[in-house]
């Protein structure tokens, strides 16, 4: 299998894997965004989706491990490639100007020149996101026992979280702006007939994903919302739904309705 290791160590092989893992992560982002957009249809739909998703115990575990491997591979290969790139130019130019027609500033603040920086910031944001929603570390007392919809709204109504989520989404957009176009070139998918499509795919995809995710914290602040009283008896928001939770009046219902609960 030395041909595999040789290929992975080669500059093209490494970049090819960065593009492949990036493409698969893009697929995850699309699925995640579509799932989150169900919030806008209604709390019930979103909660049903979340419960159904998390009831697939084995699939979820496989998906989580798969995503972790993809993230680590994407980042590790990119860091390695970046290290080689820095080593390839030991003395910097005193003056450097681009000859690209629309770019007059040297290494301007454009997405392609800051992929590693934006990628690392997105990774930090991802850690915050997992801490909030998966490991319930940020505000455990406030979200304990809440339904997924309520949990999302409560977390994103925290000012720090809201700012972090908007900035994180916009940096993801910045990263995808170049990455989602560049991957076609790296994968060798280039033809004059489709150049226009692939050149515009990155910016359009990045805008949809980035702005799409950025709408959720804004929605959390705009939507009229009465925070439900925490219900310590209810199951974990990400736990498997049981008959008890199905019979409980959902927490997103007005407080007046909850007061009418029997018992």
């Amino acid at each position: 299998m030395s041909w595999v290791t040789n290929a992975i160590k080669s500059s093209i092989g490494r970049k090819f894997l960065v593009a492949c893992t990036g493409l698969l992560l893009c697929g995850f982002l699309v699925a995640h965004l579509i799932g989150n957009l169900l919030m806008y249809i209604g709390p019930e739909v979103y909660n049903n989706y979340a419960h159904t998703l998390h009831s697939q115990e084995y699939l979820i575990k496989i998906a989580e491990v798969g995503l972790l491997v993809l993230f680590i591979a994407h980042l590790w290969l990119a860091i390695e490639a970046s290290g080689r790139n820095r080593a390839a130019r030991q003395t910097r130019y005193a003056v450097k100007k681009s000859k690209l027609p629309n770019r007059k500033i040297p290494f301007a603040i454009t997405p392609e020149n800051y992929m590693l920086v934006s990628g690392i910031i997105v990774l930090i944001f991802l850690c915050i996101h997992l801490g909030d929603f998966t490991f319930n570390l940020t505000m455990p007392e406030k979200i304990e026992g809440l339904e997924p919809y309520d949990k999302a709204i409560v977390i994103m109504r925290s000012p720090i979280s809201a700012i972090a989520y908007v900035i994180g989404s916009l940096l993801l957009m910045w990263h995808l702006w170049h990455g989602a176009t560049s991957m076609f070139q790296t994968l060798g998918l280039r033809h004059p007939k489709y150049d226009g499509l692939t050149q515009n795919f990155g910016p359009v995809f990045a805008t949809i994903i980035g702005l799409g995710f950025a709408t959720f914290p804004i929605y959390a602040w705009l939507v009229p919302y009465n925070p439900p009283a925490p219900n310590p008896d209810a199951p974990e928001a990400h736990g498997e739904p049981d008959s008890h939770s199905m019979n409980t009046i959902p927490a997103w219902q007005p407080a007046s309705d909850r007061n009418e609960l029997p018992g």
Partner: protein
Amino acid sequence: MKLTLHIWRQPNTEADGEFKTYELPDVSEHMSFLEMLDVLNEKLISEGQEPVAFDHDCREGICGTCSLMINGQAHGPDRETTACQLHMRRFKDGDEIWIEPWRAKAFPVIKDLVVNRSAFDRIMQAGGYVSVNTGNAPDANSTIVPKQNADLAFDAATCIGCGACVAACKNASAMLFLSAKVSQLALLPQGQPERKSRAINMLKQMDEEGFGNCTNTNECEAACPAGISVENIARLNRQYVSAVLTSRD
């Protein structure tokens, strides 16, 4: 016109280099950039100083020997123009011009503005050829080549190997050069028998020489005096991946 030149001076590969400033009081706008450097060198020699070493050969824009980073741009400000074809009418009286060598780990400075580009020769030696002697010119149309492929192969073959792509790339990557050399043969029937080993071996050599990766910024295409397209890099990526997956070596 009167010019102020900031030129990188470095006695040899091991020594540290530095910028030295020279004033040229009477530069004709009709001079080429290299002729302007000739005038500077005559002045330096007459003053008993060491002349500035810079690479040049044909001075017709076809050999790829000249290699100057002029005000931060490979071969100067013009698109698809080598430094020897750049003329002083492009500058104006009182301009300051910064002149540096190509900067890449794989292109060590030999002296002043002259860099060692033999890394490109070693990449070519790793597979940039057709091993079989093709003999005399065959009868017309005995080997059919689609016109579009012939044109694309010719476009790739116009690479003069000057190294401007490496100089302009923020990663000092030689992918545009390598992709042109792989493409010019991959598009023609004569190149097919060694297609796979060529892509694998030439890339291996490029990596060993210490060039960087491609991050698709397209700076190489903009700086290339021969107008080589980055479409060739996509072709190289396809060639390499298919070679790795299907080669029996």
